[in-house]
Structures are given as C-alpha cells and as structure tokens.
C-alpha cells in the first residue's frame, strides 16, 4: 500500500476542519485501497498525538524533579553547616587568640548568608498576565513596570514599585512579589514584615518556600518543611 498525495490532502482537509470524518468514510465505502490509506494516516496521527502527550508528561516530570530539589534545602543546609564548622576549625586554628569565637561565628554567618542566597534564592516567575498585559491604562502600565523590573531581577526597583502597587491595589499577589523582591535585595526584616501578612495563604507558600529561605538566611535551624 502506498499513501497517495491526494489521500494525504483529503485527510488534511479533515484535520483542518474542512471535512467531517463521515465525508471521508463515504468516499472510501467502495474503495478499499483508499480506506487502507486513511486508516494508515489515522494511525499515524494518533501516534503523533500520543508522542506529543508523552513528551509533555515528561516535561512535567522534569519540572517535578526540579521543584523537589528546590524544596529540600533543609537537608542541604546540614551539609552547609558541616562545611561551616570545618571552616570554623581552620579559621580558629589560624587566628588563634587574635579572634574570639563570637567574631568568627559572625563572619561565618555573613559568609554563609551569601552562599545560601546564591544557592537557594529561586524566585518564582512573575504572574504572566501582569507582565504582558497590553492594556494602555496608566495604572496597569505602572503594574507592568513593577513586574517587568521583577522579571529582570531588578529587585531594588521592583521591591519599591510592588510595595506601592500593594498599597494601591491591596492585592496579596503584589504583596507577595514585593516580599520576594525584598528577599532579592537581602532586606530580610522588610521581607518578613510583608510576607507575615500572607503567612497563612498556602497557595503562596507553595509558590515559593520563602519561610524556609528566611530561616536559612537568618541561620536558624528550626524549620523542617513548609507544605
């Protein structure tokens, strides 16, 4: 059996919505070779769709693995703390009596804060509609600027703009992203003040495990997991 070009065109008319499948069936009623070709094309179409869905599912599974890695900072924190401890021993032996244990501890905390920031600050993407809305209303433009600054990781600007947006809109979405922006500039106290206001909203906690991140930045070990 060889699939003719005319049969492909016929089948594509159905794919493009110009023909019903019944129209095709009526054409091959008395033509067994046409029927065979159509069945082949239909099988091919089905297989392509199966593959498309399977590829998409694989993408979701990949995202899943990434999310799970991102949500397990506590285990990795132990590794960090262990390396900090080793560093403490080395530093203490080198500096001896010149440096007190407190100064060493403070310095280590500062150093690991940068390291924690680099490793664990994984801000969620901005809300799609807020960045790409094309409405020319002035207040929407300001909102877009705020989220665009956030998208461009200009957290100094986005923290201010989004806090203003929150004051204007009262929308917890703006509040959430303002808080994350303050985390982006390592202003933990300010971030905590803002994020405290939505601490019980599980949707936001799911979006970014910010409580755990704050605990890590503050060097606390109390957080186990937030779900």
């Amino acid at each position: 059996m060889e699939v003719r070009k005319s049969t492909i065109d016929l089948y594509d008319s159905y794919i493009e919505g110009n023909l019903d499948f019944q129209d095709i069936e009526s054409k091959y009623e008395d033509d067994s070779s046409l029927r065979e070709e159509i069945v082949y094309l239909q099988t091919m179409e089905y297989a392509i769709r199966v593959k498309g869905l399977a590829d998409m599912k694989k993408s979701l599974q990949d995202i899943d693995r990434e999310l799970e890695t991102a949500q397990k900072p506590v285990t990795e924190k132990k590794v960090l703390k262990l390396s900090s401890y080793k560093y403490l021993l080395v530093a203490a032996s080198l500096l001896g009596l010149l440096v007190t244990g407190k100064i060493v501890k403070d310095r280590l905390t500062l150093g690991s804060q940068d390291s924690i920031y680099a490793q664990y600050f994984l801000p969620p993407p901005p809300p799609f509609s807020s960045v790409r809305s094309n409405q020319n209303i002035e207040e929407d433009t300001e909102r877009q600027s705020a989220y665009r600054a956030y998208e461009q990781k200009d957290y100094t600007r986005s923290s201010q703009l989004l806090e203003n947006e929150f004051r204007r809109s009262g929308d917890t979405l703006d509040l959430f992203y303002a808080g994350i922006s303050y985390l982006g500039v390592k202003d933990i106290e300010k971030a905590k003040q803002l994020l405290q206001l939505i601490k019980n909203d599980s949707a936001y906690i799911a979006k970014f495990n910010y409580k755990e991140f704050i605990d890590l930045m503050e060097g606390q070990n109390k957080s186990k997991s937030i779900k």
Partner: protein
Amino acid sequence: MELESSKIDWIAHIKSEPNKALATLYTRTRNEAVSWINNTFGLQGDDAKEIYQDAIIILYNNVLQGKIVSLESNIKTYLFGICRFRVYEYFRDKKKILVKDDNFMVDIILEDEVEYKEELESNISQMYMHLNTIGDPCRSILQLYYFEKMDMTSIGDLLGYKNSETVKNLKYKCIKRLQKMFDLH
C-alpha cells in the same frame, strides 16, 4: 487563590504557548493539588503526583482537540474535577492505571474509538517507536501539524521555511519516510 485573581485565560494561553503555559500552571498548582489528593483520597507520594500530571495532560489534550474552548468554572476546579475522575479510575483498576509508560496516552487518544481498538493500539506502538527515531525536521513538522494543529504558514514561520508550500512538500516526504520505516518493521 492566586490563579483566579490573576485572571489568566488559560485555554488561550495553552493554545498559543503550550509548553510555557502548562509548565507555569503545573508549577503554581502542583503542591496544592497533590496535598488535596493526599488529604481527600489518601493517596500518597508518587501516585498523587502521577494523577495530577495526568490531569494536566488530559486538560492539554482537551484544549488541542477543541473539547473545551472556555471554562465555566476556574482552572483549578476543572483540574480537580479531572483528578477526581482519575482517582476513581485508580481505585477501579489499580493495575492498569499509573504504569509509568505511555499506555495512558494511548487510552486518552483512543477514548472515542470503538472499532479495531486492539489493532490500532499495536500499530500506534510501532509508529510511536519510529517517530522517536525519525529526527528533525520531520518530527517537528508532523508534530506541529497533527498534534498542535498549527497551519502550514505558521509552521514555516516557526521553523524558518520560506513558504507554506515548502512545508507541505516536506511533510509529504516525511509521511512517505515514516511509512517506509513502518512497512519495513
């Protein structure tokens, strides 16, 4: 919930940028959905995640097939509704569901088929294998046209061909090539 307040037209978004839209949707909703499946139905870990991933896949297929053009409810309600149905299937036929291969996708595609289902399943498996090895540009052209339902002009623009006729000719050659592989098997 943030998904409602942001007022995203998810159906349009999935149609225009499926990978991005579904990745965003999944990332934003996954934890809540998995917790909900855990708490409501007592399904744990991988099973709950698998069910939610399948719900997203069903949503995607329904959008592509034009089975949903707009949502009466919000996207979360719709997805959770699909989850409920998948959980029902899970309890009904635990052996069949959640096997980590592509049988589920075949079931989705063939759900409206009644005739020659077994023969179709076997042929689809073979064809699927060849699609994995056919390579580009054939794989992309066939997938964009028959799966994502893009027109020839848009495919040409996306893949950098000068006009729709070129894409159409290429598609024809790809089908012939795939058929050759299928016949040789």
